[in-house]
């Protein structure tokens, strides 16, 4: 399923660690026009939530629990996560 009849996709956006502090939120919902990439979601987030404008130009991202590149496409209902530099281990 690639979107609603109106030609948009609605995704859940999640912020973690330092990015959650910058964005002032841990999550939110965004709707973007089709065809949409992760990059489009990030751009939309910057405008929607003022703090998110401080995110770096090309943050790490995951869609539905998997790492993706910013040019990966997103579908309606996807969970898009923006990840600060990883520091596990």
């Amino acid at each position: 399923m690639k979107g609603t009849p109106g030609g948009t996709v609605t995704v859940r956006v999640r912020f973690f660690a330092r990015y959650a502090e910058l964005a002032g939120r841990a999550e939110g919902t965004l709707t973007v026009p089709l065809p949409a990439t992760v990059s489009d979601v990030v751009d939309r987030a910057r405008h929607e939530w003022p703090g998110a404008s401080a995110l770096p130009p090309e943050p790490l991202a995951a869609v539905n629990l998997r790492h993706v590149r910013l040019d990966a496409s997103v579908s309606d209902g996807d969970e898009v996560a923006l990840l600060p530099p990883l520091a596990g281990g």
Partner: protein
Amino acid sequence: MTHLTTAPLLLEPLLAEVTAPHCGGTCIFLGTVRDGPEDGGVTGIEYSAYDVMADAELERIVTETRRQWPGARIAVRHRLGLVPAEEASIAIAVATPHRADAFAACRHVIEEVKQRLPIWKKELRADGTATWVDPSGHPSMVGPQ
């Protein structure tokens, strides 16, 4: 959440998970919170995670490693929440028929973990400051807590 825990990591149960009659070599890696002379008085690290993804990613790393080293038995635990200095944040155990594979597969798991796990750490210092750790080398102060 099979691979994540907020409890202290224990070695013997992890070892028991990988022990098998056909495995003669076991390599265990522990990553511990450091407070050396150059670390500036770190009292602990607060680990946070995109937990569902971190758990899934760990499972994928284990599966891929088993594929690369057939017969390898692998157990991994990552601790979350506050981990005091000198305690372990991650424990990886790998048992294989022969020792060279145990070392190689265990090393592989920790390198993949470092590159892929959506986990973050905030260093807590004795002076009350807290700093998000960016392994790429750009610490960012987040102020006294």
